[in-house]
């Protein structure tokens, strides 16, 4: 309709410049309009016929006459639109066709690639060829020239539009490219087009026209979008994975979250799906298995009639470590919890507990030491000695037991060494031990009251606050509801200690509810520097062992989970990693190593090498240069040429001194990314075209593209002026003005 009335597409009006072609000054036009209006006003006033009607009606008739005369005067000045258009047969139009796997998705009996072929061969390609030289490209993670559309295979493993467009522009840099036409579903695996890439593309001033394929919304689909999972786990540890997914069409229905490894189900959990189109995150606990690299598969299952079932699962890699972190436990006096905590860790193959117990005023009883010399003088006197441990538990020991240097070592143990420190409640612990006035108060996750007698040998029950319901530390049962009930049903604690509120950033995972009064944080944790600090304000969990059946594992489970948290993230002197352990249809892997000395100060003059063992057994050694922006960090981007599992061993030395080594795994997987986000991303395609001066089309109106594509400022263009006087809308407007005046005159009897 627009084109019928205005003779040209709306796009021309948006791009063109309005001009008068008569050559006469515009002020004369304005003067002529004013004079005409004045003359008509005079005529209306003197006219005897018109003089019989009211003033308002006379003004209406005068206004219609003035509008008509003005319109005619404007036409005399020959209005036109000045636009740039591509010179016929002298410009190249690059047609990029998404050839990724998502284009093979079948909708309404045909694939998206078939639909793209049809769109091109149903006239669009011919029309474009009439005016331009057309170059066809298939695109995925890059572009490659094709002779015709039959060469499309829908086999490229990923879609990276920004990379493809930049490659296409680069390849055609010497050619007069007038426009780019992109046929795609917009399912970009790189997460869209970042601002920098968009800016680069826009700078080329080549309009990109997009034609979108595929449904914009599936009626029934669930998609697993992310899994948050630690990259490493201790042997025998339970891991909590945060699984994020979205769905449409299954609101309020039940589904199962399933965790598998090597075909074996590790965990399975029923979840109730929330609102359509909403993102939902659920936690699931599982044990990853025996030491070594473990591929863990997460899936949302049990949904009927899904339109895309290939996006329900993702894989992650977890390295189960065989080493046993060592925890030093200093206890100030014999306590039942000391015994039962030791027993709980005795049953845990993944942790080694070394304990120092002050049995008398002068005697320290050592357990779990590596030899007769270890800790023979009691608590470590130097940071190096303390930093040999991965975790530290401070039981009922008054703060003044430690020298200022030892207190600083404990602070640095968390802050710089990255270890886990756990403070226990007790007769001489926390506030009663003077920690509120010590330099260790800073690292505690709770504030401590400035008073004594906070330790109470009174019963207290336990509740799990909201903040503790998803924590792996407090999980006695996979069902949050049953978990909360289990905590409530536990035998009461033999004692508790009053502590203040949690500090900002700290999490209260358990509350103690004394039978007498009040509610106090029982278990609180926070990150401090590179490490973790926790407070467990009681020494009375032994009643869980003595009051529950001897086969009950609650006590052991709790302490094992708590202590694994303490040491699970403690790095060694050399700590190597990669941001993405699973490369989904990608080759580039970033290798990173954090290198420290025995005091865990960053080392910036080390020689760091990564030995990479490829899936075919070949090995490559690459040096990791120092990252100039991060102290003690060495990084290198490497290309994994083959799909499969890789093992990376990073070693560091300073001169002749070996600083240590670390091992991690990563895996390159192909053909995975295209299963996700396969609904047409119209927003991305529209934004891409709008930002570059192009237009988004649907296949149904794609033929218009052939006309509109000419108006471009890229390539070889010519400036031309299109007449506007011949627009039908002008004729209709004049007719309407005349008719309106005549009808009004008839009605008012002034004809």
């Amino acid at each position: 309709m627009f084109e019928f009335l205005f003779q040209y597409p709306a796009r021309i009006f948006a791009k063109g410049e309005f001009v008068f072609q008569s050559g006469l000054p515009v002020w004369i036009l304005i003067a002529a309009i004013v004079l005409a209006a004045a003359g008509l006003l005079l005529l209306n006033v003197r006219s005897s016929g018109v003089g019989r009607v009211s003033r308002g009606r006379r003004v209406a008739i005068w206004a219609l006459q003035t509008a008509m005369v003005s319109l005619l005067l404007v036409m005399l000045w020959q209005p036109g639109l000045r636009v740039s258009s591509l010179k016929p047969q002298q410009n190249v139009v690059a047609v990029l066709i998404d050839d990724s796997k998502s284009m093979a998705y079948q909708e309404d009996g045909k694939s998206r690639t078939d639909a793209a072929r049809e769109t091109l061969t149903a006239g669009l390609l011919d029309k474009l060829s009439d005016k331009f030289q057309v170059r066809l490209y298939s695109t995925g993670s890059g572009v490659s020239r094709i002779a015709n559309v039959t060469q499309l295979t829908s086999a490229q493993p990923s879609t990276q539009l920004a990379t493809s467009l930049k490659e296409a522009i680069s390849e055609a840099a010497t050619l007069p490219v007038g426009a780019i036409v992109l046929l795609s579903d917009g399912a970009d695996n790189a997460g869209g087009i970042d601002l920098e890439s968009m800016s680069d593309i826009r700078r080329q001033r080549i309009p990109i026209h997009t034609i979108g394929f595929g449904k914009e919304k599936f009626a029934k689909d669930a998609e697993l979008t992310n899994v948050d999972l630690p990259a490493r786990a201790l042997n025998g540890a339970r891991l909590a994975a945060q699984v994020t997914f979205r769905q449409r069409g299954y609101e309020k229905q039940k589904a199962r979250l399933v965790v598998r490894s090597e075909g074996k189900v590790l965990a399975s959990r029923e979840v109730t799906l929330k609102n359509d189109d909403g993102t939902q995150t659920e936690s699931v606990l599982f044990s990853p298995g025996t030491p070594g690299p473990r591929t863990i598969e997460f899936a949302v299952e049990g949904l009927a009639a899904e339109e895309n079932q290939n996006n329900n699962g993702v894989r992650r890699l977890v390295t189960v470590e065989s080493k046993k972190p060592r925890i030093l436990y200093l206890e100030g006096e014999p306590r039942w919890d000391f015994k039962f905590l030791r027993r709980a860790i005795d049953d845990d193959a993944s942790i080694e507990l070394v304990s120092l117990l002050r049995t008398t005023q002068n005697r320290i009883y050592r357990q779990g030491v590596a030899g007769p010399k270890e800790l023979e003088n009691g608590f470590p006197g130097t940071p190096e000695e303390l930093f040999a441990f991965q975790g530290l538990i401070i039981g009922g020991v008054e703060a003044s037991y430690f020298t200022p240097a030892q207190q600083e070592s404990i602070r640095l143990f968390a802050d710089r060494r990255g270890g886990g420190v756990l403070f226990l409640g007790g007769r001489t612990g926390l506030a009663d031990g003077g920690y509120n006035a010590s330099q260790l108060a800073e690292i505690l996750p709770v504030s401590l009251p400035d008073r004594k007698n906070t330790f109470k040998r009174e019963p207290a029950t336990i509740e799990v606050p909201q903040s503790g319901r998803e924590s792996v530390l407090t999980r006695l049962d996979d069902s949050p509801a049953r978990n909360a009930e289990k905590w409530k049903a536990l035998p009461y604690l033999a004692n508790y200690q009053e502590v203040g509120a949690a500090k900002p950033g700290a999490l209260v995972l358990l509350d103690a509810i004394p039978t007498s009064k009040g509610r106090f944080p029982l278990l609180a944790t926070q990150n401090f520097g590179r490490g973790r600090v926790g407070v467990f304000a009681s020494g009375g969990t032994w009643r869980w062992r003595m009051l529950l059946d001897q086969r009950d594992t609650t006590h052991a489970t709790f302490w094992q989970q708590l202590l694994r948290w303490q040491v699970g993230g403690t790095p060694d002197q050399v700590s190597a990693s990669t941001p993405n352990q699973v490369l989904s249809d990608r080759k580039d892997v970033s290798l990173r190593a954090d290198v420290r000395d025995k005091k865990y100060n960053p080392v910036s003059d080390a020689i760091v090498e990564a030995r990479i063992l490829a899936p075919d057994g070949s090995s490559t050694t690459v040096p990791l240069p120092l990252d100039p922006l991060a102290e003690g960090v060495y990084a290198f981007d490497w290309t994994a040429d083959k799909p499969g599992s890789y093992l990376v061993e990073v070693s560091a030395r300073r001169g002749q001194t070996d600083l240590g080594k670390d091992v991690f795994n990563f895996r390159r997987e192909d053909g995975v990314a295209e299963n996700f986000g396969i609904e047409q991303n119209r927003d991305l395609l529209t934004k891409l075209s709008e930002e570059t001066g192009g237009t988004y089309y649907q296949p149904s109106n794609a033929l218009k593209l052939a006309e509109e594509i000419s108006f471009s400022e890229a390539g070889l263009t010519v400036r031309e002026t299109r007449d506007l006087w011949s627009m039908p809308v002008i004729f209709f407007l004049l007719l309407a003005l005349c008719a309106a005046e005549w009808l009004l005159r008839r009605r008012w009897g002034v004809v």
Partner: protein
Amino acid sequence: MRIRRLVAASAAAASLASVLFAFQFGRRGRFAEEDVPVPPDADEKTEWVFGRLRYSSFRGGSGSWGVRGSWSTDYPKAERQFVQGVRRLTRLHTRSMEQVVDLDSDEIFNWPWIYGVEVGHWDLSDAQAAKLREYLLRGGFLMVDDFHGSIEWEIFTASLSRVFPDRPVTDLTERDHIFHVLYDIDQKVQVPGIVMFYTGRTFEQDGVEPRWSAVTDDKGRVMVAICHNMDLGDSWEHADEPRYPEQYTSLGYRIGINYILYAMTH
């Protein structure tokens, strides 16, 4: 009729008197509880409490506390003197007053360390044996003492075998941790009871050789520490008796403290 009533009343009075007598006096004489004052801090809430096991006596018939059995031998002076030593010699927060516990209720689970004396006279029912087994497997600790000779050993093990039919009694060696937790007890001697004053011998019945043995759990940790052919209770009770040799008291205290600390560390 009147004579019959008189006879019946006399019989009832005699029965009552005999019960009261039996309750007041143990095997070795008068029950001394009233001679030992209750400490002023007897109600203090502490980490550790001396738990004294009250059990059914072999002579008294199973399941009856009415007839005073051997569980109360040396009670309460032995433990009240002993805990003063525990307080003085260790950092253990210790209650000055003992806690008497039995195997007929779940109260015993609140007291993870218990002491059984004269177990050569105990007679546990199946239910009591099951409760003791559960107590020990959960992590409780039992120290038994002051029983002598082969006959009392047989009686002791008869009940013990109902507690642990599948766990043997093993002899402790000098290398065992229990003898080194605090004190290194390398030279152990027989600790006699005060019967030594009268007999001049350190042993009773045919229990010439002291036997230090134990029942352990699956990880080799001592659950039941057995002190056979010795009387550590007397060494505690008579620590203030000038005639009682200091070396025995000293050893008795050391062993007792080691057993407590072992129970709280293993």
